[in-house]
């Protein structure tokens, strides 16, 4: 199999690292070679955050360049738009349609771009979801990451049970119920 490249983007503090950990664990359990790359430190303080996940028979580089991502899993609308050039032709973007204003918008130095969804649709298959509401429905707004993992699972070739098993082994027991519910809501969306 060719290497599959998935990019997870969002705003520091949204829980993108947990999403990449679940995805990473699912694919190793399937016996693939896998590499993940993430950046810690300053950018985690409310800045744009990017995680790359690549899996296949043999993966060399842990990073994804422009035009190479099969799927972009975006936790925030503007970040989905920012990541668009990294998508392969014909690739898919799954986006939580929440808007979080970056500081230049807050201070009035820039405007939050309009109509992002239709601009993305010109170049990509777009699956948009209000993951924040689904996370609330599951019982915790922080479960946005697992709602999105549910949506990713639905569009992947890996069977549902493998995802559920990995969530069970990755998430702390006291948050398991909420997260399993969040996964189902995302999966069935």
């Amino acid at each position: 199999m060719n290497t599959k490249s998935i990019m997870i983007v969002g705003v520091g503090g949204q829980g993108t690292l947990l999403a990449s950990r679940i995805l990473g664990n699912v694919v190793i359990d399937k016996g693939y070679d896998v590499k993940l790359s993430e950046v810690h430190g300053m950018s985690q303080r409310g800045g744009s955050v990017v995680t790359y996940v690549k899996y296949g028979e043999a993966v060399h580089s842990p990073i994804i360049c422009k035009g190479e991502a099969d799927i972009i899993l975006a936790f925030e609308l503007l970040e989905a738009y920012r990541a668009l050039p990294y998508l392969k032709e014909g690739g898919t973007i799954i986006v939580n349609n929440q808007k979080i204003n970056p500081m230049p918008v807050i201070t009035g130095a820039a405007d939050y771009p309009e109509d992002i969804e239709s601009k993305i649709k010109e170049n990509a298959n777009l699956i948009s979801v209000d993951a924040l509401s689904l996370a609330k429905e599951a019982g915790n707004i922080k479960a946005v990451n697992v709602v999105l993992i549910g949506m990713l699972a639905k569009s992947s070739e890996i069977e549902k049970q493998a995802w559920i098993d990995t969530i069970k082994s990755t998430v702390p027991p006291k948050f398991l119920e909420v997260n399993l519910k969040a996964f189902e809501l995302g999966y069935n969306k």
Partner: protein
Amino acid sequence: MKKLLLGNAAVARGAYEAGVNVVSSYPGTPSTEITEKMVDFEEVYVEWAPNEKVAAEVCIGASIAGGRAMSCCKHVGLNVMADPVFTVSYIGVNGGLVFCVADDPGMHSSQNEQDSRHYAKGAKVLMLEPADSAECKEFTKKAFELSEKYDTPVFIRLSTRVSHSQSLVELGERENAEVKEYEKNIAKNVMMPANAVKRHVVVEERMKALGAYAENTSLNKVEDNGSKIGVIANGITYMYAKEALGEEVNYLKLGMVYPLPEKLIKDFAAKCEKVYVTEELDPFIEEHCKALGVEVIGKDAFTLLGEYTPQMIAKAILGKDAPKCAEIKENIPARPPVMCAGCPHRATFYVLKKLGLTVSGDIGCYTLGAVAPLQSVDTTICMGASVSAALGMAKVKGKEFNKKLVSVIGDSTFIHSGITGLIDIVYNKGINTVIILDNSITGMTGHQDNPTTGLTIRGEATKQVNLVKLAEAVGIEHIVVADPFDVKNFEKVVKAETEREEPSVIIAQRPCALLKKVKYTGNCSIGDNCKKCKLCMKLGCPAISDRNGAVVIDKTQCNGCGLCVNVCPFGAIKKEG
């Protein structure tokens, strides 16, 4: 068993399997997780030291006494560590001694882009550089072995992409390395001139032996694909080159980046018509090749700046274009990092900006006091410089300037290297005001305990440095502890202390909002009596924004810290829940 491990976690695992006895470090992105992961291994003594120099010295002592020891830091941490490192190169080791240093090409979380390989050359210390997590583990084990075999400290060089990528690692068992006998050896361990002169001879002999080792070690690997093009690569760029070029070129992968081989490089180049060097940052390997008379193409085809990518390598070497991709045809707003909602530093910088002070800044989350809209910080240089540089500013500009000048430094940074600057102020009759931002934790690197928190790296209770007594002990007579969220009082305190013609310390005390013990609840919301003065917008809180002229608070971002409630002059912001 194969496990998906972060490069840093794999270094920790390698040290554990090598039977390491002592690990001492100061946190610094991208190296921090190595030392944090050591906590998983009960057999190992692990600590956060006050700074990198202390950490290295603890490890040197452990090595001389016969144990295996490792100290980890970021590239700029190595500057602080350099003094003992250069001399322990002469002393050598008893138990294996490893210094692990993580560079940050692209400066994801750093103030410069220095290349630590120069330290290996300068200090005459062997340096290994892994390319993925499996090598991180293997090379760390190898580093301890080589350290004892060649009686030398050994560097492991990482980069952000190796430290913070995860890949598969085969786990092994811990080696049962006995702590060796300690024997008094003045000629080897006391570095005064007469002894050091003799040890320098030993160092040069060791470099020759290591040079010979570099020619034959399996750490350096040739992959001959029968191509006319050769690529010499180290660390992550080897992985990038493999992805970009596959089997279209021959490779010389250098796992040992100092000392570099000579014959191996000449023989490799002799079989190729063109040889490229793919190395991030400085032309370290390139210059070595050119000094040997080997023609290579390096920085002319690549860059001295930032990170490489597989696409960059494919383009430069094979002329291959990147795949087509969508273009964004408008300018979209950047999303720079910001202080978190509830951050105690926000209140401090709000007051400093309001008072129009010159702010000599330092390294930590509070460096973000330099970004819009607060833009309060004037300078950031290195750990501790906020205190000493402000003395220099005051000495050249005089008393009136000094009254509009403060230093701001975090609690952990103050312990790291702010104390000596404060002593300089007192000793040399400075009248500076130093604000210690005491948020009860080392924040930016992800919450490490430090000597002011009262907890060790393993979470055990310990003695806590008392910052007030410390400031008193060095001769500061005016010390005020104040909560920056009590904005009115904090402003009064800062005014009074900067006016004073004597040195003073203000301890701005309020814990980091991300600490578990901090339990802000509910949300703030703006009522109908908002006069749209937008004073609250000056806080630069990520939860407060201007939507078509109306100020609104985003409930998903607000944590109910209440700072905006304290700042609003009209009582229009209320706390709910």
